[in-house]
Structures are given as C-alpha cells and as structure tokens.
C-alpha cells in the first residue's frame, strides 16, 4: 500500500501536468482556429461521441506550415543557428576545459566553482547584460572606437551575430563541464606514453587527448544544441527582426496572433525535430556509461 502511494503520487502528478497537457497540444494542433474563446474548434463534448469529434480533426495546420515559408525558414534557421553556435561554443569551451584540466590540483575546485556560478545566476540577466555591451553606443563599440580599431560603430545588436554571442555566453558551462570531466579522467601517463613513443606535444594532443575527450565533446555539444533549438529569450532580446527562430515564432503565433492551433502544430514539429538529437544524446550517454562499466 505504502509502495503504491509512493509510486502513485509523482506518477499521477506527471500524468496530469505533463502527459495530458501534451495530449491537448496534439489535439489542438489538429483542430481549426475559431473566433471564440477558446479560439479553436472542435470542443469535445460527450453528447456527440468520440467518432464525431475525431472526424473533425485534420492535418490542415500542418499543411499550412508547409505552405507558408515563414515556418520552413524558421525551422531551418533554428537548426542553422543552433549548429553554428554549438560549434562556436565548442571552440571557446574546449581550451578553457583543457586549461582547467591542466591547472594545479589546488585551483581546480575554485575554477569549477567559477564555471558553475554563472549557471546559478539568472539566465535572463546574463542575456540582458549583452544588450548594453553590443548596442550601437554600447561598451564594445566605445572601446573599439576609443582604441581606433573602427571609426564607425558596428551594428551587432539585433543581428544573428549577437544571438551567437548570447548562446555561446549562456551555454558555455554546459560545454565546459562534460569536456572537463572527460579530460580530468584522462590518465596523464597516456600522454607521457605517447611522447615516449615519439609523438611531439602537439601530435600527442591530436592523437590521444582529443580522441579520449570525445565523449565529453559529444555530450557538451548536445547539451548546447538541444536547448538552443527551442530558445526564445536570446533571439528575442539579442536578435533582430531578421532572426528567425522557432521558439520565437511559436511565442508570437500564440501571444500576438492568438492562433492556438498553428502554435500547437509548430510545437509538435519542433518536438519531432528534437527527437533525433535527443535520441543520439541518449545513445552517447549510454555508451559512455557502459564503457565506464
């Protein structure tokens, strides 16, 4: 009995507040928009029966998504922005993780804390901080003009570049931590063995360190890629009107256009796109867990 309650409480909670809402999204994505409140058709009613209800559902919203190239472009541009910023985060994060792993033992807890600290601070505030830096009269332009690197202020805010910077900045800890964990586990005598066998420092790095930190690289990349794909805050605060990201489109579809069925259809497709990287990520984690025995 006790065991039953133990299972039932969280189970029912998740069913009611995760699975059922999700089923509602699925259902509304198949409904028609209506000028009513709630603004969609059909409403389920027991008098008409399930058959009549189901017969009114259709894939019209999904067809609509394929005909309006706004959605196509938004999906593709989300994928592109997520992919580019993941690569950028890797290039910024790897040297930091590598430096941390080679730092003296006594510094490492502090360095770890310094990487984790931003993670506990508000995401919104960290994104917001860049608005002041990147704007026309922002601190970056002030510094660059003052040093004479440029004579005209650069337009960075409200472009995709600002979005890249924002993603790299906010998701950097997610990249650093798994890579650092992989490098930290790496047995230092392996590098010495490689050098003993005739590798130069550099080739030992490419032939031993990089391949052995690959699980960390893969894990970190997915941890950046997956949330970036559905990101809303960064494109809406740092991106411009030209920055198309699906999370932002969904938000606007819902709050500005009040088209719930289309917003739901957008959500369903976003989820379908996400399944592939999530499954790949899971596989990578499992492999790693098995390799560690």
């Amino acid at each position, binding site marked *: 009995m006790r065991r039953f309650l133990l299972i039932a409480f969280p189970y029912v909670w998740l069913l009611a507040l995760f699975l059922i809402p999700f089923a509602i999204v699925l259902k509304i994505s198949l409904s028609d928009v209506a000028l009513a409140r709630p603004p969609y058709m059909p409403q389920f009613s027991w008098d008409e029966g399930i058959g009549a209800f189901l017969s009114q559902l259709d894939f019209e919203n999904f067809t609509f998504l394929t005909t309006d190239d706004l959605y196509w472009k938004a999906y593709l541009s989300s994928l592109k922005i997520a992919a580019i910023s993941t690569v950028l985060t890797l290039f910024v994060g790897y040297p930091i993780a590598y430096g941390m792993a080679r730092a003296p033992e006594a510094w490492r807890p502090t360095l770890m804390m310094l990487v984790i600290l931003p993670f506990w601070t508000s995401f919104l505030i960290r994104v917001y901080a860049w608005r*002041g830096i990147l704007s026309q009269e922002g601190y970056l332009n002030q510094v660059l003009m003052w040093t004479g690197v440029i004579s005209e202020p650069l337009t960075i805010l409200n472009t995709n570049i600002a979005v890249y910077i924002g993603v790299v900045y906010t998701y950097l800890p997610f990249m650093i931590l798994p890579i650092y964990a992989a490098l930290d586990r790496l047995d230092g005598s392996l590098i010495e063995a490689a050098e003993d066998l005739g590798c130069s420092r550099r080739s030992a790095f490419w032939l031993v360190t990089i391949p052995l930190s690959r699980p960390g690289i893969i894990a970190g990349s997915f941890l950046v890629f997956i949330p970036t794909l559905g990101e809303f805050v960064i494109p809406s605060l740092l991106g411009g009107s030209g920055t198309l990201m699906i999370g932002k489109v969904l938000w606007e579809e819902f709050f500005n256009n009040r088209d719930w069925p289309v917003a739901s259809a957008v959500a369903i497709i976003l989820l379908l796109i996400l399944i592939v990287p999530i499954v790949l990520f899971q596989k990578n984690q499992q492999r790693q867990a098995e390799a560690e025995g």
Partner: protein
Amino acid sequence: MSRLSPFNVVSLTLGFAFLYLPMLILIVYSFNESQLVTVWAGFSTKWYGELARNEAFLDAAWVTLRVAFFSSTIATVLGTMAAYVLVRGGRFFGRTLFSGMIYAPLVMPEVITGLSLLLLFIGLGLDRGILTIVLAHTTFSMCYVSVVVSSRLVTFDRSLEEAALDLGCSPAEAFRLVTLPIIAPAVISGWLLAFTLSLDDLVIASFTAGPSATTLPIKIFSAVRLGVTPEINALSTIMIGIVTVGVIIASISTKRARVKAEADERMAQRTA
C-alpha cells in the same frame, strides 16, 4: 607544480574574462549616476533607492519568492519520491512511461512546456495566477530534483537500508532514520536547484501567469525589451550578489567538509 603552458594561461584568462566581464560591467554601471546607462557620470546608489520605491517590482519579487518557495518544496518531495521509485521501486506497471516522463521535461523546450500547461489550465477553467505558476514550476523542477537525488541514490550502499531492516526498522523507519539523513545533501541541492530554476524562469511563467500575478522575470523581460535601464542593472546586481554569496558559502562548506574528512582519515589511521 604547474603544467600550464602559456596557451593554457591565455585561454583560461580570456575564458573567465568572457564569462565574468559582462556581469562585472552590469554591476559597475548599476552605480552610475546617469540615466544613460552607457555613459559614466559618477558613483551613485540612487538606482537602488528607486528600485526600493518601485512597487511593481517589489510585488513581482514577492510573488516570485513565494512561487519559488512553494514549487521547490513540493518538487523536492515529489522528486525525491520519484527518484526512490526509479532507483528502488523495482518493476511496476508503466515504469518506462514513468521514467520517460521524468526525463522528457529536462529536454523539452520551455515554450512547449509553457504552451501545453496553459492549454491545460484553460481547459480546466483554472484562473491563472500564483497557483498555476506553482503547478507549472513544480512539474518541471521535480524532474531536476529527481535526477539529482537518483544519482545519489544509485551510489547509496543498499546494505545500509538492509541493516536497518535487519535491526528491526519498518521500511518507512529505515527511510526516515537511515536513507534520508544520508541523502540529505542531495535533497537539499535538489531543492536549491528547483528554487533557482523557479526564480529564473521567464518562458513557462509567461504562459502560466495571469494578470493577477506577475513574476520578476516577466517584469524584467518587458522592461529590458525596451532597452537597458539603470534600475534593472541595480536589480541584476542584487540578484547576482545573492547567488554569488550562496555559491561561495556552499563551496566553502564543501571545502570544510573535505578538510574534515581528511582529518578523520588521519585519525582513523592513527588509532588503527
């Protein structure tokens, strides 16, 4: 002994500068006299005073704290239960679905979670307000709590629980007297994580909040969309300050615990 090459030193310095400069600038400019945030016009704390008189912000902060407290507390209870079920529950009907529902919200884009919960609340005819935000936050943060707690439970020596049963505990007593005190640090960090997630959340709160209750992130978001303001800088500084103090206290106490463990180790060896 340091094996740091010049390259390592440069990448660490630049890396941490990149991580911390934006926040540092924010903090510095929160003490700027000028209304124009990008022009330095002398030191002043007047924006903190403005902030303290801003009723809307104070109300939102109070709502946010209450939401965070209730949602993280419920999430900790439910998440710990879920973790225990996942690690110790054995087989039961729908176990795969259950573990799927625990992990899915971790990777679910916030816009989708928010949208789906909003549609549920509308379907139920629930008035949007503090209650709905608490329900929404509890749902996703219980999954984080459950991951944190279950990773501790996995390494938990099961024979400790068996020893408790062997010495006459009922299963519930064994949990209360043995398991819970030992996994308490993980439960506490789960609670802290849930609390911060709730404090920070903008997207899900935007979907589930109603006109009667606005949270601080929603307020900040609508303010910063229009531009950078010194008042928001001041608010950010306060929030960064609180988190920094918290994290530093936490890391000092873990360091203390480590030093104490080493001392205990030496003591054990001496008496051997």
